[in-house]
């Protein structure tokens, strides 16, 4: 039979073992196949706890062993419920943040190689591959995730690593401030028609409601309105802009929660308020530019890319761009960072799977075979090469690569 199949057969075999692309995020995981234009599945990064049977976040663990169990169960679900392929002897591309904890990376490799016996794993930096979806090689990539915002400048395909920036400003921060605002201001109507303050009914709002309220009702206000509201805080004589209409939200089946318009507008403001180090998303961008070589700054500023699930919130990109421009014109930066224009890219995908798409494009090329880490290599040493591990990232190593 193989005699007659010829070249077509070989092609089929390659096709059959399509590389799997995984982007495991704090809140949501994107999974699919290389060469496709969208992930097969975007699922919550949650696993059933082996002891209690409750759904818990994937990255909530006490020790490495527990994390490994979580990953084993989670990847099992991905392969046998979503992707429906055999993990064994199939290549995997893992899209990971360069700032991802070593323990997560090592455990993931252990699970993939030892439990699922995959053929090879290629870890690709999420910020870098996000640029591949645009077809450009230079860009300032800001990833707004669930837990944090991370930023990497990339110049001609090289990550300017010492200019990385990160702040714990992500979706979870919005949810936290939303929860505080709701407990402070929202009113709930119970079954008998009486109105109560929300804080008198429940101490804290379950996360799934917070996420739902955030996604369906909240938005990021414009810079003008926001500064107007800020001024109002300090000087009551300044009239605040009229608040957006409030929303009636059914909560747990027996309460009607009235979400005031101000809460809808203010929930995301926490991303733009200066923290104790006077840092915001805008200063994140500008500080990264300051750390980059002076000749690269103009080009980087004209190639901003904002990705990540939180970026798809209504008005978010517009606001970040406005904030960056305002901060660049402020006293703090206008002398040291004279940048005439900031421009933003629009990736050909929904914001939450841009990096995944980059990984899928890379995974469909032969680079996967050349650059991945093979199972035999792993089983021989039990370690994964990493940029922060000095036994791999040395001068000789680099020289060899360029020779």
């Amino acid at each position, binding site marked *: 039979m193989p005699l007659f199949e010829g070249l077509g057969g070989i092609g089929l075999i390659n096709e059959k073992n399509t590389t799997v692309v995984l982007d495991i995020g704090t809140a949501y995981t994107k999974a699919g196949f290389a060469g496709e234009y969208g992930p097969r599945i975007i699922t919550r990064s949650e696993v059933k706890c082996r002891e209690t049977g409750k759904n818990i976040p994937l990255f909530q663990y006490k020790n490495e062993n527990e994390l490994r169990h979580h990953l084993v169960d989670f990847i099992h679900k991905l392969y046998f419920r979503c992707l429906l392929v055999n993990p064994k002897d199939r290549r995997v591309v893992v899209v990971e943040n360069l700032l991802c904890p070593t323990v997560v990376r090592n455990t993931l490799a252990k699970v993939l190689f030892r439990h699922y016996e995959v053929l090879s794993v290629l870890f690709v930096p999420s910020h870098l591959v996000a640029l591949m979806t645009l077809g450009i090689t230079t860009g300032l990539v800001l990833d707004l995730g669930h837990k944090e915002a991370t930023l990497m400048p990339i110049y001609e395909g090289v990550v300017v690593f010492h200019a990385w920036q990160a702040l714990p400003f992500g979706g979870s921060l919005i949810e936290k401030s939303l929860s505080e605002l709701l407990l402070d201001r929202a009113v709930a109507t119970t079954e008998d028609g009486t109105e109560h303050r929300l804080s008198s009914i429940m101490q804290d709002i379950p996360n799934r409601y917070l996420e739902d309220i955030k996604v369906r009702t909240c938005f990021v206000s414009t810079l003008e309105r926001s500064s107007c509201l800020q001024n109002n805080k300090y000087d009551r004589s300044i009239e605040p802009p009229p608040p957006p*209409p409030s929303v009636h939200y059914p909560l747990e089946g027996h309460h009607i929660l009235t979400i005031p318009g101000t809460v809808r507008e203010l929930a995301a403001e926490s991303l733009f308020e200066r923290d104790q180090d006077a840092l915001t998303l805008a200063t994140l961008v500008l500080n990264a530019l300051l750390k980059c070589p002076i000749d690269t700054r103009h080009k980087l500023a004209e190639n901003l890319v904002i990705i990540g699930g939180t970026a798809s919130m209504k008005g978010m990109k517009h606001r970040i761009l406005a904030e960056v421009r305002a901060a660049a014109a402020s006293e703090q930066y206008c002398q040291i960072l004279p940048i005439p224009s900031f421009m933003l890219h629009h990736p050909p995908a929904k914001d939450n799977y841009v990096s995944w798409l980059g990984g899928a494009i890379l995974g469909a090329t032969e680079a996967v075979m050349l650059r991945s880490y093979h199972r035999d290599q792993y089983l021989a040493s039990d370690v994964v090469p990493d940029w922060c591990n000095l036994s791999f990232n040395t001068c000789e190593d680099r020289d060899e690569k360029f020779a």
Partner: protein
Amino acid sequence: MAHLFQGDRIRLLCSCGLLKPITAIYFCRHCLKLRCGNCVSHEVDTLFCPNCLENMPSTEARLKKNRCANCFDCPSCGHTLSTRATSIQTPSPEDPSKTVARKVYYLACTSCRWTTRDVGLKDQTVATGGWVEQDNEHYKHLQSLLEHYRSVAQQEKLEREKKRFSHRKSSYLSLSDKYSLPSILGRKSLTPLSPFAHKGDVSQTSEMTPLEATAEVEGLPEDIFTEEVVLSSVTTMEQRLSSPEWQPEKTADLYPLHKHILVKRSLRCRHCEHNLSKPEYNPSSIKFKIQLGAFYHVPEVRMVRQVELKTGVETGVQLSLCNPTPHDMTVALLPFVPEASEVSLQKAGEESVEGSSLNTSSLVRVVEIPPERTDLKLTADVALPQGQLILAARDDTAEYDDQDSSPNYKDDPQVVAWRRANKVGVNLLVTPKPDATYVRVGFVLRYDYTNTVATATESRTVTLNIPVMVDVGPVTQS
């Protein structure tokens, strides 16, 4: 929760080191070891649609992105959509002044009442299929990107292959390549995936237009500060993510989803590559071709009744042992020492690696999973019945016999409390340790297993040891 096999109370220690109930454990007849879901390799066996129960070959599933062509899910609630027929009046093709009734079909959800008419999809004239698929709006761009990066990677590969054959040590490699190799091919393959590649070289790779950045971004819609939000018209996160490529934000943009297919899994022992579980091919059958559950091979232990336990007081706990195999079995209970069992487990692991060469070809390399660590702390001292006892073979007709026809075993009444068909009751004496609130005892079940594998050349019966942990119950404070 009451459970037929007391899965929450009685657990066996699998060869990988996890404690599992007997219902979650397999017994490999070739390695003669317990295996569980953690230490077997899972494989996709057959793909099928859970709604129409139709098998789907894996090539077809790949093309259809693991979705059934005919069945749809509701994009609003996830329930299966059903086809509804209705007739409409349309102008007759022959005489436009007359109207004729025509049957048309649409999809409706019986759970949340969503229909394809809600979102403005046209009714279909055929009962199945005919629904237009959604396209990715960035298809063209992504396709050109893919081709571009494929050719870049191809060139990188050529480059590497060339390097392998040229002088390795030369630091002037690129120069020597440029000037000494006259071939055009040599010149061409100089395009590396290097970040500092000459701009001119890009022309050799396939056409690709990078996207342009813009100075302006789409801001908030004008009416957001004045318009009321109608919650039912905004999709939830689940609704959005069920079609990852489109992620509609308004319920008016929802589109029927093709039903995701499911798989039947088969399980394979990692050490000897034999199947432990293999389902039948037919999707509507729930039977197995191969099912080596421990329940069919390992004596089953159950607690007969709940007893009251007091700290420091010796209490009798009755266990029943049941022989599921059609062969008589000699059973003994041995004390369980957690530390020793760990060592023996490791030893057993090593042996099995060596032993596996007997069963399978030596080409098979076993990838060991990391050892599991389970808390095996015992909270009571246990006095086990001494000596051996014989468990009668299972006989399905025994239940229907009026009188006890089993042959007389010379049982030591100290060991055997009662005997019925293939079951035997034994008494343990449990003394809860001080400051224990919940009693857990352990013992090693030693039994003679009759090997049923046809190819087994050595002695047919093997003595096996299986550690068993029993959660006897809470301690009442006296």
